[in-house]
């Protein structure tokens, strides 16, 4: 049911046109941050206003929307954003990754491979990968113009000098098509390889910082590294205790105050479908049924 007091997908048509033009320029120059006149949204900055505006500009009445936060469909902010679009656009929603046509995400890329025709919309807090090295927009813009990315390599190299390894575990910078260094949003670096050569369109929206950027399908995305310290995606060295998956990103759940803990898939849809298909982890499915 749509809320008749608002336009389809909340935003007015002129705002949507402005966002759509920015998205198209983003697609044309992969990894480049296109400035756009972000609007105040009915949720606070930091809650995904950039992603929400991009999703609103992309939604059609025939879309099926999935919203995740931390990989899960049932986290409060994901629930809130999904309800917002149900109310203002009247679209269908799903938790199943392969059924969705648009997936809005915060901090994760789904484990299930995306497909042609899907759009993954990322919520981005700080779109500028160089921001913590250089706080000034006027400077970082120049650095992108001149492809002056030495500072980033210096930072990563200082990590190696101090820790023996690159001590960036999420929000790990990437280079797009050999040109722009891009911030992949705070996804764990475990997810970085999924950015490259995806069949889906990937759109990034930063509302407070007023930037949109994009990765068309089949775009080459490389995580920055060094020959002697190659990029390594990492995750907890465990299997999922619920579904037994050995290759998915895991959340650590503290189970008691005696140091007890379990590891479960961060991607709730992935974990559920595996369990539905009969996969059982260390703590079995019985424990799960009991708690639900």
């Amino acid at each position, binding site marked *: 049911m749509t809320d008749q007091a608002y336009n389809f997908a909340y935003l007015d048509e002129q705002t949507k046109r402005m966002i759509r033009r920015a998205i198209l320029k983003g697609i044309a120059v992969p990894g480049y941050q296109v*400035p756009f006149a972000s609007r105040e949204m009915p949720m606070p900055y930091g809650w995904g206003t950039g992603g929400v505006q991009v999703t609103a500009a992309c939604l059609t009445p025939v879309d099926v929307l999935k919203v995740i936060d931390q990989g899960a469909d049932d986290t409060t902010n994901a629930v809130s954003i999904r309800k917002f679009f149900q109310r203002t656009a009247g679209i269908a929603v799903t938790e199943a990754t392969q059924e969705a046509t648009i997936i809005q995400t915060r901090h994760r890329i789904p484990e299930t491979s995306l497909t042609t025709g899907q759009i993954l919309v990322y919520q981005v807090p700080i779109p500028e990968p160089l921001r913590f090295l250089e706080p000034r927009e006027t400077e970082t813009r120049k650095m992108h113009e001149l492809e002056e990315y030495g500072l980033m390599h210096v930072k990563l190299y200082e990590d190696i000098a101090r820790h023996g390894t690159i001590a960036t575990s999420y929000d790990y910078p990437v280079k797009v098509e050999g040109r722009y260094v891009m911030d992949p949003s705070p996804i764990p670096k475990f997810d970085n390889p999924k950015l490259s050569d995806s069949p889906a369109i990937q759109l990034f929206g930063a509302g407070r910082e007023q930037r949109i950027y994009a990765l068309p399908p089949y775009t080459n995305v490389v995580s920055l590294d060094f020959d002697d310290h190659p990029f390594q995606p990492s995750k907890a060295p465990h299997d999922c205790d619920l579904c037994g998956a050995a290759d998915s990103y895991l959340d650590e759940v503290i189970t008691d105050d005696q140091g007890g803990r379990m590891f479960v898939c961060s991607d709730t849809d992935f974990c559920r479908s595996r369990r539905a298909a009969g996969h059982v982890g260390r703590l079995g499915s019985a424990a799960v049924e009991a708690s639900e």
Partner: protein
Amino acid sequence: MTPEALLGGFTNAPVQSALAFRSALEALARPGTLHNLTGALPPPPMSKAAGVLVLTLCDGTTPVHLAGPHDCAQVRDWITFHTGAPLVAADKAIFAIGTWAALQPLDRYAIGQPDYPDRSVTLIAELRALTQTGPRLTGPGIKTEARLSLPETAAFAQNRLQFPLGFDCFVTAADLVAGLPRSTKVEAA
């Protein structure tokens, strides 16, 4: 302004422009793929597809250049009435519309600035027909390679050399559209 200028717009703008944008997005994100654009009836010589793009992307904030035969009273009135877009000379345009020949020479258009490459023109080039044959396309959005019946290769190859500056292009014929962003490498087949 003739009464005809009032006709041929979207009947349900929020929904029709959303569907049209998604086609345009798919077209530009996957160079070489063909997509249908319907819902607008612009006056000739403008194609349906070009008309839909105009209704979807243009408004009072986007200066439009009409080239050659497209620069006629009917098209001017139609765009003015339906979008309010200012009609301007080529160098001021955010969108430029016309046949490939009429759009020439291409060095008139904005190709962006080194610090703001997005401030560049989007060409809407009207062709007689559009098929997945002809010059070979590679680059972002294309898994291996694609083919598209482009009017030439040299201009696009030249455009690619300026990356990240350059123009972006939609090619249209009847109700079909394909996209050709500046990132695409175009070579003779």
